[in-house]
């Protein structure tokens, strides 16, 4: 059995202030094999690791191509996207005839002239390998699944958890599915049941956990190869943006339709759960101010300024409010501010300096704050490990500002791991509250450390109250913009 692997992942926000180019794909998580064969480095990459573990177990012949995750940001320059796509396609041609093609894609990637990069890439792959070779893709659940993707691929499998802790397990499942298809044991067929809703859906909450359990139960039914809850990515401005349930069955199985709809209904019924978690900034700070002392900190998700959703990661709304209210004992991270990092390096550890902090990427970052800061610690070349990735943090500084701590860094990225704080000597357990610029992925490692998790709504780039007038290609009706219902 001969398999070909490639990975090209970018969650594209139509409204991100951060542009995207080839450099964005080369500088975050990027791997390029020397001779088309997987190295030990390839085996450590999220997604590839599961594919390769399964392949090794069978003794399969594996060719690998470029693998990259770019930080979420605006649509990529067209020529750059095409160059990366063509690099993968050329490697596929060079690999010669294969039995299966397995791609790790995001599902919500756009370039400046293409709303559906995954559909485009999968169609090109199909054109090269022909109709009989298995083509499958592992997706982020924040995918916008299109008819082009479904037409071109044999099977699409999305991760199940948000935070996305299960790419590796899903990669193994997809590989096994593809292998059975390539051997003619099954004939994958896809059905996508769309849901008229957009939003964020945390699988750490009870109703979404129930929907996930329903999907898993359906997956155990005879004739079912895979069931994925597709959450959609709401900051993509495209007609096929949205949520749904994706079934991969063994051949056409009309009798599964009621089961798919029942899962979709459970998903639809959970739609308001995550939204209800969002608290206003004042409510969050009031709650912390009035709470008695405790050995564990509150963890506040600065959910709207998540670099992992394309935001600038330098908004100042929460910090400004904490300073204005005179609250103390907060630790903030990671605020992307290369100039502040450089100034802190100039002042040195123990140095005191006046800084203009944050608010530098655009209107959605709020106002820059003029503060006096003491440099507590400086570090170079930091990284963090989260949901299967090793992500660069870069040079960072811990700053003390009026009894609070702010971690600034020079590589824009969301907070996955408490090491973003502890690497700079900041003891999370000693804080009253820890504010992380992340929507939900922080939950995996911060959840166990938290006294309580508070999801804070701010006017940042990723506010859940989307403004439909900014979209040109929104297909209505859609919850929560319109009153809609879903009946199986």
């Amino acid at each position, binding site marked *: 059995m001969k398999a070909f692997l490639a990975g090209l992942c970018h969650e594209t926000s139509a409204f991100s202030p951060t542009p995207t*180019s080839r450099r964005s794909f080369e500088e975050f998580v990027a791997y390029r094999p020397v001779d088309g064969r997987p190295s030990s480095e390839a085996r450590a990459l999220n997604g590839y690791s599961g594919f390769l573990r399964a392949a090794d177990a069978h003794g399969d012949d594996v060719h690998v191509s470029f693998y990259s995750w770019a930080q979420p940001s605006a649509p990529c320059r067209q020529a750059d996207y095409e160059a990366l796509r063509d690099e993968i396609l050329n490697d596929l041609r060079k690999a010669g005839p294969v039995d299966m093609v397995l791609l790790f894609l995001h599902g919500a990637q756009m370039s400046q002239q293409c709303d559906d990069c995954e559909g485009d890439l999968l169609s090109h792959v199909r054109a090269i390998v022909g109709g009989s070779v298995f083509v499958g893709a592992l997706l982020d659940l924040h995918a916008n699944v299109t008819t082009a993707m479904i037409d071109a691929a044999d099977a699409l499998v999305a991760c199940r958890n948000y935070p996305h802790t299960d790419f590796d397990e899903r990669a193994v499942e997809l590989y096994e599915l593809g292998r059975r298809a390539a051997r003619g044991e099954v004939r994958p067929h896809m059905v996508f049941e769309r849901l008229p809703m957009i939003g964020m859906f945390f699988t750490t909450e009870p109703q979404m956990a129930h929907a996930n359990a329903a999907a898993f139960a359906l997956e155990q039914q005879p004739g079912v190869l895979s069931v994925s809850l597709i959450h959609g990515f709401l900051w993509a401005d495209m007609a096929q943006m949205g949520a749904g349930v994706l079934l991969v069955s063994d051949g056409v199985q009309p009798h599964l339709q009621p089961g798919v709809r029942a899962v979709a209904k459970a998903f639809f019924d959970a739609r308001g759960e995550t939204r209800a978690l969002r608290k206003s900034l004042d409510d969050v700070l009031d709650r912390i101010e009035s709470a008695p002392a405790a050995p564990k900190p509150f963890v506040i998700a600065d959910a709207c300024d998540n670099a992992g959703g394309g935001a600038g990661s330098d908004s100042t709304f929460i910090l400004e409010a904490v300073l204005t209210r005179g609250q103390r004992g907060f630790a903030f991270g990671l605020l992307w501010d290369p100039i502040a990092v450089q100034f802190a390096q100039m002042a040195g550890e123990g*140095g005191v*300096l006046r800084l203009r902090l944050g608010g530098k990427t655009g209107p959605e970052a709020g106002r820059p704050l003029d503060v006096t800061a003491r440099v507590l610690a400086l570090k170079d070349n930091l990284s963090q490990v989260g949901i299967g990735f090793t992500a660069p943090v870069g040079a960072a500084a811990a700053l003390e500002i009026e009894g609070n701590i702010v971690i600034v860094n020079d590589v824009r990225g969301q907070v996955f791991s408490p090491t973003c704080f502890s690497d700079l000597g900041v003891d999370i357990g000693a804080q009253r509250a820890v504010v992380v610029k992340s929507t939900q992925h922080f939950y995996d490692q911060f959840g166990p450390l938290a006294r309580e998790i508070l999801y804070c709504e701010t006017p940042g780039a990723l506010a859940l109250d989307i403004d439909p007038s900014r979209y040109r290609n929104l297909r209505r009706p859609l919850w929560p913009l319109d009153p809609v219902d879903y009946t199986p």
Partner: protein
Amino acid sequence: MTKTVFFSSLMTETSSFSNLPTTLADYQSGLMRGDGCFFDADGRERTGAAPILAFARARGWRAVGGLVAQSTVGAPTQHRDYLALREEILDGVRAAQPAVVALGLHGAMMSTACEDCEGDLLAEIRALVGSATPIVVVLDPHAHLTDAMLKHASALVFMKEYPHTDGVERMQDALAIAGRMIDEGLSPTPSVFDCRLLGFFPTQRQPMRGFVDQLFEIERGPGVVSASFVHGFPWGDMPDAGAKVLVYTDGDHDLAGRVAQSLHDSIWAIKDQTGPPLISVDEAIALARAPRTAPLVLSDIADNPGGGAPSDSTFLLRALIEANIPNAAVGLVYDPQAVRLCHQVGRGGRLTLRVGGKLGPASGQPIDLDVEVVDVRKDAVMTFGADWRFGLGDTAWIRSCGVDVVLCSIRVQMYDPSGFSHIGLDPASRAVLVVKSSNHFQAAFEPIASDIRWVSTPGAIDFDFTRLAYTRLKRPMYPRVADPFAEPS
């Protein structure tokens, strides 16, 4: 036992309106120690050392060098770094056990925990050498004259010229006073007149030239040991800031007071005629509207990085955009974050960019612009004259609302039109050029300019002293009040 004259120097001009951190690293360039203070690596006598060596030779003494360190203008020096510098100087004094201490100080140095570093340093030295040992000091006139400085120094001699070309002569004056103290028992008796004046006093042009000549004249007169005009440093916010007259006589308090008063009267009479000729932002915009065949060059005088300014202020840029001035170019705006985003978009790309206003309050507010990235350069270089090459880091040329802006990633002032042309922007073809430089740009921009004007912009080096947000300087000061002497100080 051979006696010793000890020399040391510590100089920086601290701006309260700059937030560029000043640390030990900033003092490393040109740092000298021991005999290195007097002789270069080839053993040649340094020009500045001549008065000290001459003083020692004439008396058969030895000259001992301590630490000579200086930093360009910036925010207050980190206090631990000031203490380290002070301690090295004090170690030198302890080791030398000098009969005379001769110092070169700026007079406007602040640390993050001390707003009068010179007063502090002089007190420490005085405690080491005792009350009888002459401590004479040459200072930059852009200084804050404080009681502590007066109390602990035997004589403070301020340079009279700006540009400061007379450091050697003033050290001769200072050591002459030390010599007379030893030989004649001279007792330098100071009188200070607080002019309650904030100003800027270049000394080449009249009427300021005549005032400096008057200082020399008075020093030649009977009974006067030394007469200094302390210009003050308006960008240092501390209680003693401002222009002052300092006159020393030999024990004659009345004479010192009379002379100081007369010098004050002289400077007061010309106070409105000393500064550089500046135009307001509104006047600059009016000039920018006039049709012309060669560029009007506007110096954004308050945002010169060579003077500790951020080089990313947005005041003139905003005015150009709001006035819809076509065919204008602004450079060099320090904004590495924006440059990075422009490089990601690449040539010909468009994006919404938050430009400038990122280093501190002196930067003004950032401007949100829809821009076209006209071009980008990696590791760009600005040339200046035959010998100078200034690295700009990555640069980007953006265009919005008819205004072109060249952004850079390394803070450096606009010395030369190549700051524009390196990226393909032809400065000679623009109607208006805004340069973030106050002086150095002149030589290279003059050949392409139809007119050069200096604009009184807000910012780190704001020349409109009525606008500066002082919190520590509380005395009534001209021009912040029309008659500061009508109010209690």
